[in-house]
């Protein structure tokens, strides 16, 4: 198989200017990441700073209501409130080992931006974040946090002023200053080796689920559900189960106002193969390959593509991808808060919404794990608005 490909998907579709830093990163991935020094330092950070392992929690109330065993993987309890920090600790540390001093990152919901700014503050690196103007409005609290952490936040006004435009702008910025700068891509997307690097740093999620489930129940779960924007929390949660055919892997995309409307971000449901943002994968696009202006209530899932490894898992049928509407996600957001006392990120609520949909067909003895990829504080104002209520934070 070709280097950097997952089946037909992946690759390095970037300007020549970016090839040298990508090759340097491949080299760092081969030599630095597996070294005991790096691994020890990263594991210490994950334990003492991030707070890993995150709990795998059996929901008593939801399990009773839904009629199967529902467990939550609590990535919302990580420092900074989402899975994104698993990746930024890894890439931040790698940046230091590579002798670079500046972190660049795109962000959608702001979670990856906050996690990158946090890594930069901790590790003494400079940090510049690119965020769509529309997302800065939707996620004002996270913008404040990034600045508080010492990052510069740049408003991106091109295109739809959301996540895809933030990625494009960060790539543009990176082509201008590669020598001292590392681009901390926030999901399992972009050119090789990012999909692999980010996957490897997020795979701790499935490694822990596996150990925790075997330790507590003595068996593997029957299904693992996670929301999919670019797909990093999902691939992290799937990775160590890919070889176990008995474990269903289900990725939940954002349908927005519905997959039969133009206001959707469900890439597998509505996209087709394409080449964009450095990778060959599925993308929402028109018949001439113009990237579609996608929409979701969730800024973190509002992306017109999906990581290449997911594209392959979809094509081979190993994982299944479903689409959840804004309405369904908001209901799940409220339902988990009310029933279990856990306010999830609106992104994660997409995965929980599908668990509710599975209830009628799921036998009692089944164990389902849903990843709560983040906590919902950042979304409260937007959900209140969605319900017609004005909050001032």
């Amino acid at each position: 198989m070709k280097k950097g490909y997952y089946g037909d998907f992946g690759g390095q579709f970037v300007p020549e200017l970016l090839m040298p830093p990508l090759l340097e990163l491949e080299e760092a991935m081969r030599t630095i990441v597996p070294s005991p020094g790096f691994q020890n330092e990263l594991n210490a950070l994950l334990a003492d700073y991030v707070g890993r392992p995150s709990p795998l929690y059996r929901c008593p109330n939801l399990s009773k209501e839904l009629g199967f065993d529902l467990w939550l993987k609590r990535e919302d309890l990580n420092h900074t409130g989402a899975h994104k920090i698993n990746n930024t600790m890894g890439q931040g540390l790698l940046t230091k080992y590579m002798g670079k001093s500046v972190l660049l990152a795109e962000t959608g919901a702001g979670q990856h931006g906050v996690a990158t700014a946090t890594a930069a503050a901790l590790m003494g690196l400079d940090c510049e974040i690119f965020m769509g103007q529309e997302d800065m409005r939707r996620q004002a609290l996270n913008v404040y946090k990034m600045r508080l952490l010492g990052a510069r936040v740049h408003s991106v006004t091109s295109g739809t002023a959301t996540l895809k435009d933030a990625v494009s702008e960060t790539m543009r910025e990176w082509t201008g200053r590669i020598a001292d700068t590392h681009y901390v891509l926030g999901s399992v997307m972009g050119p090789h080796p990012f999909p692999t690097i980010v996957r490897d740093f997020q795979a701790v999620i499935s490694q822990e689920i596996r150990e925790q489930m075997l330790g507590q129940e003595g068996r593997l779960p029957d299904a693992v559900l996670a929301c999919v924007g670019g797909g990093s929390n999902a691939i992290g949660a799937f990775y160590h189960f890919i070889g176990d055919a008995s474990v269903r892997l289900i990725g939940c995309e954002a349908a927005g106002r519905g997959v039969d409307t133009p206001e959707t971000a469900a890439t597998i449901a509505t996209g087709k193969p394409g080449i964009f943002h450095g990778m060959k994968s599925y993308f929402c696009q028109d018949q001439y390959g113009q990237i579609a202006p996608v929409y979701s209530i969730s800024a973190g899932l509002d992306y017109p593509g999906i990581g290449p490894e997911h594209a392959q898992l979809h094509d081979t049928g190993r994982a299944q991808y479903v689409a959840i509407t804004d309405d369904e996600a908001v209901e799940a957001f409220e339902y988990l808060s009310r029933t279990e006392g856990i306010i999830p990120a609106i992104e994660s609520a997409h995965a929980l919404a599908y668990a509710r949909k599975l209830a009628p067909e799921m036998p009692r003895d089944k164990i389902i794990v849903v990843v709560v990829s983040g906590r919902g504080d950042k979304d409260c104002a937007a959900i209140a608005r969605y319900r017609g209520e004005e909050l001032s934070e």
Partner: protein
Amino acid sequence: MSKIKNAFGPGKAFVAFLTCGDPDLDTTEKLVLSLAAHADVIELGIPFSDPTAEGPTIQGANLRALSGGVTTDQIFELVRRIRKQTAVPLAFMTYANVVFSYGTERFIKTAAQAGMDGLILPDVPFEEKEEFAPVCRAYGLDFISLIAPTSRQRIARIAKEAEGFVYCVSSLGVTGVRSQITSDIGAMVRQVREVTDVPAAVGFGISTPAQAADMAAKADGVILGSAIVKLVERYGRDAVPHVAEFAQKIKDAVRSVS
């Protein structure tokens, strides 16, 4: 023999770039016909929604063209019309997805039959060109390779397989006018010449006749994009005489060092 390669030399060449459909296809047609009198090769940009190698100027042109509803099929029609009126070598410049989503072979075959001579995809590096280059070869299009100031030991490998011309990216960053070009262009061009007789043209950031003359002295040709697009942005449908006047100045500057 490559029409594009032939357009270089014996003197230095001027390669001009335009975004098709900015502000509309009729204007693009007039601009191309007028530029054909001054430029040795013309790059026709097919607009893309998310041009990640482009600075604000060409991003704006892409946006204006797409909001006008321009499509790849309409641009093929434009090329057929242009080809009836001029033999100037033409290369498409666009992004991988525009070609891939159309069907790579279908796109390249249609382009060749319409009269195109080359294809430039700034988001397809050497490592990924197998997706496009063999198909281009089969239909007689030059697949243009790019090198950058950071390419160093990659230059020989890339240039060895180059067709048409080698596109030397002058500086780090995206397209757009620059007051100064600080990279050692001469060294890049020498590395190219060590392995191929395919000409080397410098682009990214060149906007004045003086810069064009300076770069032409170090290479086989110069590529101007953003400076032309700025005139189109400023004068819209009335841009033709302004672009022609500018192109004449660039051509004179480039000739002065030939």
